[in-house]
């Protein structure tokens, strides 16, 4: 399954300062669907190069990180249970406090 992942608000620093990643990831053995929970595991294993605690907490993202699936907050699509589809766009962005 082809997905576009984007990291912003400083999270890109955890993956070699690359903001946009075009990836190919398939459901695990025996699974028919790829959920956000699966994707987070994949991202942590394959993209996060340093300080994983700045990206995840438990099996979800850390506080202060917004997750957007096709420009919509994942709270509106089922959070970790959100089922991904071909060519979906997933954004991970850290909230900023500067001014």
């Amino acid at each position, binding site marked *: 399954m082809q997905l576009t992942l984007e990291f*912003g608000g*400083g999270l890109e620093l955890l993956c070699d300062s690359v903001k946009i990643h075009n990836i190919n990831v398939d459901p695990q053995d025996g699974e028919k669907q790829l959920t956000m929970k699966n994707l987070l595991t994949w991202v942590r294993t394959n993209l996060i190069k340093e300080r994983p605690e*700045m990206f995840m907490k438990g099996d979800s993202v850390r*506080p202060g990180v*917004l997750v957007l699936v096709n420009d*919509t907050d994942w709270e509106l699509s089922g959070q970790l249970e959100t089922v991904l589809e071909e060519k979906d766009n997933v954004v991970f962005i850290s*909230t900023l*406090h500067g*001014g």
Partner: protein
Amino acid sequence: DLGNSNGLSPDMIYRYSRHLLLPSFGVQGQANLLKSSVLVIGAGGLGSPALLYLAACGVGRIGIVDHDVVELNNLQRQIIHTEAYIGKSKVESAAAACRSINSSTQIVEHKEAFRTSNALEIVSKYDVVVDATDNAPSRYMINDCCVVLGKPLISGAALGLEGQLTVYNYNGGPCYRCLFPTPPPTNACQRCADSGVLGVVPGVIGCLQALEAIKVASLVGEPLSGRMLLLDALSGRIRIVKIRGRSLQCEACGEHPVLTRQTFPDFDYEIFTQTPLSTGPLKLTLL
């Protein structure tokens, strides 16, 4: 004709003629603006353009809260301040600039740090609040104060080459705590003072904060509530995304709020976020 012009004086009709000519804004939008009051918390990178446009457009009363003084390294982005004000109060400097472009707008100077001890009293005097601060504890404190008092909150942030903007606590929409119930780890929060910021990035976000404040105060247009604008200045990308609605479990605006007018003054935002409210010294470790 004072009837048709909604009480606008001939001078005001001339000054605001470009607004009055707009069919979708017009005399009614301008009259609403002139009757409104906006509080801008922070006279820095975001507050500079926000204050200038709010003063220019004819908001009736503008409050400015800040306890800092102007420093040379602010001037790269804080365009409301001039070199002549280095070492002087940011509020005095910003107030003088606002008055010089529009002497008919009332400017109120709050030369003090925004704290739980004065927040309710200050915010209660205004219709709309603009969060132009630069740290996590202030953002939670301002949000909770706005929720407790029922004030719409225009929230902007900028760091590095990125900016974010949304309107909280507006017309049944979410508040800051609905989105971020738990504070981030302290080492994930950076200020412009620590990490740098391209000066014009808070410029863009601050202008957009003024735009949203004007829409809320004039009752014209659709404010950016339930939506968030994300700016990536380097690649020249802007996206506006749909965010969650109000959370029934929210500790500020939910069904059983922990934060109320009574509990708010005793809530310790520095402990909650494990971050101090005031800025530390600049570390130029990269140079």
